[in-house]
């Protein structure tokens, strides 16, 4: 996984509440058995005027001129500014895959849905929760100033504007460390293999009906 330390980048808006993961990446693209290449289909139904199909060359498709990500001023954005309950709905990790593949490394919103929030950390994306008033202020600044950029510092847990304004944010220590170092979660957990085996032995003795059921298991 890519690590995340400090990101300085162009900001793009997704100015609506309850953006669900069906919107972020529609279902037809979930048929892929790969984990990359979802970027061209990010926000597909809003971004294009026609119906997208998996495997299609998106460069020839008609763009929706009203959709902000299609505006010249937001090309190359790496920070997405969003509204409350971003990422609600399905647990599809294709949503953060699509955001990351498009080039977003940070999403700022007043709140996130739990599963999406968790999935971001597994894919090198930092979801930042800021108070509603702060998000509103950033939206205003973003609309006024073309080329609006922000600096996001995970170590310091700060979002900094070009004018030197600083917004602190919280993030739990475990997720922060994994993201800062770009750690492989599985590798970290396997360091506790002995503890897992110990638990399993005790749990099997205590709840034997949970074992040897779907198939006979080796001890």
């Amino acid at each position: 996984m890519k690590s995340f330390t400090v990101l300085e980048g162009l900001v793009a808006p997704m100015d609506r509440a309850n953006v669900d993961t069906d919107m972020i990446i529609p279902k037809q693209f979930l048929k892929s058995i790969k984990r990359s290449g979802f970027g061209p289909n990010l926000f597909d139904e809003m971004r294009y005027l026609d119906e997208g199909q998996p495997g299609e060359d998106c460069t020839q498709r008609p763009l929706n001129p009203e959709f902000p990500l299609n505006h010249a001023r937001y090309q190359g954005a790496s920070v997405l500014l969003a509204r409350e309950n971003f990422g609600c709905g399905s647990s599809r990790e294709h949503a953060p895959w699509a955001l990351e593949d498009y080039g977003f490394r940070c999403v700022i919103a007043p709140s996130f849905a739990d599963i999406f929030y968790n999935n971001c950390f597994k894919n090198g994306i930092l979801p930042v929760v800021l108070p509603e008033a702060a998000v509103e202020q950033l939206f205003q600044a973003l609309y006024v100033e073309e080329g609006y950029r922000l600096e996001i510092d995970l170590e310091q847990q700060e979002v900094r504007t070009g004018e030197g304004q600083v917004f602190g944010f919280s993030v739990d220590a475990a997720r922060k460390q994994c993201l800062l170092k770009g750690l492989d979660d599985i590798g970290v957990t396997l360091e506790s293999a002995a503890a897992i085996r110990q638990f399993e032995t005790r749990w099997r003795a205590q709840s034997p009906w949970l074992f040897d059921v779907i198939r006979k298991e080796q001890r």
Partner: protein
Amino acid sequence: MAGLTLYDKLWRNHLVDQREDGSALIYIDRHLIHEVTSPQAFEGLRLAGRRPWRLGANLAVPDHNVPTSREERAGGIAGILDQVSRLQVQTLDDNCRDFDIEEIPINDVRQGIVHVVGPEQGATLPGMTVVCGDSHTSTHGALGALAHGIGTSEVEHVLATQCLIQQKMKNLLIQVDGQLQRGVTSKDVALAIIGQIGTAGGTGYAIEFAGEVIRDMSMEGRMTLCNMSIEAGARMGMIAVDQTTLEYVEGRTFAPSGALWDAACAAWADLHSDADAVFDQTITFRGEDIMPQVTWGNSPEMVLPVNGIIPDPEAMENATQRSATIRALHYMGLKPGMAITDIQLDRVFIGSCTNSRIEDLRAAAEVVRGRQVASTLKQALVVPGSGQVKAQAEAEGLHEIFLAAGMEWREPGCSMCLAMNADKLGSGEHCASTSNRNFEGRQGIGGRTHLVSPAMAAAAAIAGHFVDVRTLQEHSA
């Protein structure tokens, strides 16, 4: 010391390691796998040279992509016409073979929607931790299990380590007292709750549903309610184990029997919140106040009783709510002031992990019996949740009632809930759907979904528009 909630107990029982940074390692008893969110996880294992930690904890079944028409289904995987879907279902088969994971294949009678199949086979048991790469895994909490959806990275993590790194959630008690009116179902309870607390109301919480209405509910009803927890923002919803739970579980394929059954029942007797347990938040509803519900917008919280009137955004003070309402009314092709019962329908879908169990089909059949689907309707689909549900329904003659009314009787799968197979809405079409999400484009691009109970969907199919199912039930009584 204060008592523990059901969630606290399930968490404690599965805690492998509490770390100083606040995270915890939680042991996973059952991992359910389907074709959409698993291929990248298996690929990850391959790339890292890892094997599954405990084969016997996993059970796989294809459901999202499978066709539901008898003709297309007859050819098994090779018969799937959409080649991208076919590859995904084939990939699940291949991965299960390569990694030696138990799979219920496409045309096995036990095949069906993973959240119907798990409890039905006894693969989900009280007191378990159950995960699956699907947000509606909350369904399994109905059996007194700690169950929630995970992303694909976590699917790989569970396969490789039998654990998840978790942060403990807060406790939310949703208490539904009293009794439900006739014709009001668990789906209406779920939608009424979401209408009040909102789609983010449960974010950060594990929900426990309790109260007289829940105690009186069947297991099927409880599964519907826990299934919809995620639509209230909570990854998990759960219900204490009682006699209803035990009667449901006993005798199922993977459930214990004999002395093991007795030992399990003794352990499960503790699976309830202690009388002095402390919840971070408690919300109370009265069963008598809940009417049949219909959603009108593109979020499950945009819901009204069937006698409701479409809201006027101009009357809303909150700017975000106003703009969301304007957008939803535009997408849904509805006008403020219009009655819910005036919404004309194009299609009806009875199915999904929310409402495709035998009780759901019985409720729909009861309304449909002896009646005809409205001539204005293009299609009314009934898709059983599993091969076993289908067989049971056919043994009871329910399929003949649906077919005689002009409905279609399909093979099991997720179907039009998310339209990954051929079952989908056309642009602008209104659908009365027993599924769980009314998001834009969910059931097909431009499709307009209205979430309802199976009985309400059946009534809508007969009338061609929404109607209070209780008026039909009175006539037939």
